[in-house]
C-alpha cells in the first residue's frame, strides 16, 4: 500500500483500534507503551487501549489481535519494533503508510460525523 493512499474501504473496527492505539503511543511517548529501546506497544497493551472508550471500545481477544496484526504487517501498516528477552512479547509500531491510512480513516469519520451533526442527528458541539 503506497504512502498517502486512503484505504479503499472503511477499516475494520479491530484494525482501526490497533492503528489508533499505536498512534496514541507514538503521540504521547508514554513509558507505559513499552520498553524505551524499541518504542511501540505489545499485544496486551493494544487490547487494553482498544477496550477503552477512547480507543473505540472494541472487545478484542488475543487471536483477533494477532490475526489483525499479521494482516496489517503484510499490508505495511505496522511493523514489529522488537521482541522481549523471553520472546513472549512482541512490540509493534505504525509505519508511515499506517499513519496515512489512519489519517484518511479519521478524516472519513470526521466528515461523516460533521454530516450527521449538520443533519441534526447528533448534538452540535458546545451544546448539551
Amino acid at each position, binding site marked *: 500500500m503506497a504512502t498517502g493512499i486512503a484505504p479503499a474501504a472503511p477499516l475494520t473496527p479491530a484494525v482501526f483500534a490497533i492503528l489508533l492505539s499505536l498512534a496514541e503511543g507514538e503521540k504521547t511517548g508514554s513509558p507505559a507503551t513499552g520498553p524505551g529501546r524499541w518504542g511501540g506497544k*505489545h499485544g496486551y497493551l493494544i487490547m487494553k487501549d482498544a477496550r477503552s472508550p477512547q480507543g473505540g471500545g472494541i472487545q478484542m*481477544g*488475543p*487471536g483477533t489481535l494477532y*490475526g489483525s496484526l499479521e494482516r496489517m504487517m503484510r499490508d505495511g501498516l505496522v511493523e514489529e519494533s522488537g521482541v522481549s528477552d523471553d520472546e513472549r512479547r512482541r512490540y509493534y509500531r505504525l509505519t508511515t503508510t499506517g499513519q496515512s491510512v489512519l489519517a484518511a480513516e479519521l478524516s472519513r469519520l470526521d466528515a461523516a460525523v460533521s454530516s450527521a451533526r449538520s443533519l441534526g442527528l447528533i448534538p452540535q458541539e458546545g451544546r448539551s
Partner: protein
Amino acid sequence: MSRPTEVADSSGRLVNLYAMAVRLYPQPFREAYGPSLRQAFRDALDDGSLSRRALIPLVLRDLASSLLKEHLSMLRDTFARPALIFNALVLAGLATVLALALNTIPQQVLRLGANDPQIALADDLVAKLEQGIAPADAVAPASIDIARSLTPFVIAYDDQGHPSASQARLDGAIPVPPSGVFDYVRQHGEDRLSWQPILGTTSNKDEKSALNGGMAPRGHGVRIAAVIQRVKLANGSSGGFVLAGRNMREVENREHLVGQLAALTWIAMLALIAAGTVVFGWYTRPGPAQAH
C-alpha cells in the same frame, strides 16, 4: 491464607487451557504468534482490569471467531495464489483437450472402419452393373432385416432413385435414402454417410425425406453406415446407384464405451490435478508476515 495460591493455581490452569486451545490455530500462525497469544492472555489475567467473568467469555468468542478466520485465511493464502490457480487451470485445460481427443479420435476411427465391408461390397456390385449385368442378377438373393441384423447388405437403385434390387428390408419395404443423397452422388460419384432410415423424430430434413420414402417412424432410430456409389455404364450414361450398408448398433455401442472411458479419464485427470495442486500448494504455502 490460601487465597493467593488458589488464584495462582486457577490462573495457571486457565493459561494451560488457553495454551491447548492455541494449538488449534494453523501451524504457521501458531509458530509465529503462539507465545505472544499466551502472553497476552496471561497479561489479561494478571492485569485484572477485566474481571474473569468478562474475560473468559470474551476469549472464548475470540477463539471461535479467530480460529475460523485464521484457518480460512491460511486456506486462501495457500490455495488462492494466482500462480497456483493459473497452473491448475492450464493443466485442467490440457486434460480437457486430451480427453476430447481420446473421445473423438477413437470414435472417428471406429466410424470410418465401419465402412470397410460396404466399400468392398459397393465396389464389387458397381463393377458387375457396369459390365451390364442386370441388378436382379448382380445382387445376391437375401432378405436382411436391417433393423435387427448386423450383416452388410447391398441395394441397387435406378437413376431416379427407385430400388431395382435389394438384399435389405425394413418393415417389409426396401429403404430409400433421401433424394439429396442421390443428387450428391450424381455430382461426386460416391458418398459415405450415417443414414437413419427409422426415425426417432421427424424434425430433420433428411428424416422427413426418409419418411417420404415410405418408412414409418418408430420410437427409436436405426443408423446405417452407408456407402453409395454411382454406376457409370460403358456408353457413359448413368446406370443408377448402389448402396452398401450395415447396421451401426455395435459400432455405436463401442463409441459409447469410448465416450465413457474418455469421461472417466477426464475426471481422473482433473482429480489428479486437484490433488497435486493441493499438495503442491500446501508445501509451498507462504509463511506468516513475521517470518519475512
